[in-house]
């Protein structure tokens, strides 16, 4: 089985978020970047397929050279090869077009992308990929088993779970549940040493439309002052008469 894990390079969750150029551009100054958590769950599940079922695992990222440390970490965790599309990933449709091109070329059986990246939270890429490639698609996937050409995927649905059976080639929009946080791997020294020798291919982007453009970012309003109340009755009164939420 040949697996491609699509990896986004995103700010660490503890980063302080600021914007520049009149609130139109994300300020990367002093920000640490990590593997998008939804992608890392997918990568870790792919490693399981590699160890247990002898799968080959490639990773692909759309990004400029600055994303390579994140890709090298994925190689140190155990991915076999990496492909970087040399372009700034500003639009979900554009990113999906680039990845679709790589997937077509690589003849992958299984493509695992995070359900969404935790920076812009577009949540579009896996779905667009499935459409562009005409592949089967399971989103919000929280468990995945593959037996021959048959895949059994569990999906999170409102208030419960749904188990689906489908066939390869397949695209997964993955999230926590594919593996648990305690399963995530810290690259060990052997992995870091091996990552030095692994191939990281850089390809130029194909012509594709950027369907959207960021025009402005707004940060959430600063939290207002807290009002402390002495009794439940007073709280109910304020929620009912002042905030008018109950």
């Amino acid at each position, binding site marked *: 089985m040949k697996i491609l894990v699509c990896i986004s390079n995103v700010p660490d969750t503890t980063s302080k978020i600021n914007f520049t150029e009149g609130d139109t551009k994300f300020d990367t100054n002093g920000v640490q970047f990590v593997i998008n958590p939804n992608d890392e769950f997918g990568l870790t599940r792919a490693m399981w397929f590699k160890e247990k079922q002898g799968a080959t695992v490639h990773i692909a990222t759309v990004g400029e050279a600055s994303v390579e*440390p994140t890709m090298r970490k994925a190689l140190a965790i155990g991915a076999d090869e990496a492909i970087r599309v040399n372009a700034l990933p500003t639009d979900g449709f554009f990113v999906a077009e680039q990845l679709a091109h790589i997937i077509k070329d690589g003849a992958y059986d299984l493509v695992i992308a995070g359900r969404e990246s935790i920076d812009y939270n577009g949540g579009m890429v896996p779905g667009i990929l499935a459409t562009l490639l005409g592949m089967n698609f399971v989103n919000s996937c929280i468990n995945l088993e593959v037996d021959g050409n048959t895949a059994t995927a569990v999906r999170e649905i409102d208030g419960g779970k749904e188990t689906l059976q489908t066939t390869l080639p397949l695209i997964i929009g993955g999230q926590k549940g594919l593996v648990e946080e305690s399963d995530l791997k810290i690259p060990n*020294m052997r992995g870091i040493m091996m990552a*030095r020798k692994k191939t990281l291919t850089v390809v130029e982007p194909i012509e594709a439309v950027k369907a959207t453009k960021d025009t402005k970012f707004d940060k959430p309003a600063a939290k207002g002052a807290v009002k402390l109340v002495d009794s439940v009755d007073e709280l109910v009164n304020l929620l009912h008469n002042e905030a008018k939420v109950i």
Partner: protein
Amino acid sequence: MRPDLFEAPDYYHLDDLLSEEHKLVRDAARQWVKRDVSPIIEAYAQKAEFPKQILGGLAEIGAFGPYIPEAYGGAGLDQISYGLIMQEIERGDSGVRSTASVQSSLVMYPIYTYGTEEQRKKYLPKLASGEMMGCFGLTEPNHGSNPSGMETKFKDMGDHYLLNGAKLWISNSPFADIAVVWAKNEEGRIHGLIVERGMEGFSTPETHNKWSLRASATGELIFDNVKVPKANLLPNKSGLGAPLGCLDSARYGISWGAIGAAMDCYDTALRYAKERIQFGKPIAATQLQQKKLAEMITEITKAQLLAFRLGQLKNEGKATSAQISMAKRNNVEMAITIAREARQVLGGMGITGEYSIMRHMMNLESVITYEGTHDIHLLITGADITGFPAFQ
């Protein structure tokens, strides 16, 4: 103990000077310490026990012999990577870093540098994987700062050496499988010998009731007519310069390690000062606390630059023993001062095991003494710049 919320300070963007691989190695060690060391270390320090279950993890992150070539099981990394690993481990605990320092610089380094090809092949891969643990015997009950006065000696008995004497303050001794022991031959020349656990007459009693490095095992090495095979002598260097070469490597690692302990104390104090409200405002908004915190980050930044430059010199094979002494002395004193100041920022909370500060402070009392005391390192600098050794 509270959850480990550590965020590493990098005031002068030292990260920009590091390679992609340096950061990968450093971040892996940092993540491992957060996951496997921080949650348990306080409990082990309180009960004065070494957490043996982390040995496998230390090997995995490359803490055992990171700069030993890959052919012998090491990681073949540079000196800055070694320093960064030591920094991250000591951010967790100086005792754990001590175990790694001893294994790398005081056991693997002399076997690699002064040993035969057979010795390298026999010991280094097992030491790198943590399957075998080592310790280093130089200090004796009557000879600390003056190791050349050592009394431990060995006699050539034809087909073996007969070793007699005792070593004290030996990290890892209670559980080590092998000891690199420095002893005088009949002519009074210092040589290194590999002594293996199980050799008749060799024992390793543990030193109890320490107030420092409580999560690290310390003990003695006692040699009572121990027959050591001739193949266990390290042949490629003798004289005091041989053990001092090992100490240069370990002291270099300590100069980075101390930064880790200081970073943890600073980060804890900064977070606490911003959250702790007195007189209606965070104590971080008061001038006296800002003085402490501002001086801490200044000193950490200076220490980082000192260690980084020393790492470059080490990589180029140009670092002198005196330069290493300066970094060890400066950075450990920096760390212990920051631990004491950080303890004050936390007030009464600072003395509890809820926070790591008091543990770091007590650990650093050993670190400022071992591997050349604070005073001896000053005299090394003094001798280096004046040309007059003033040790006696």
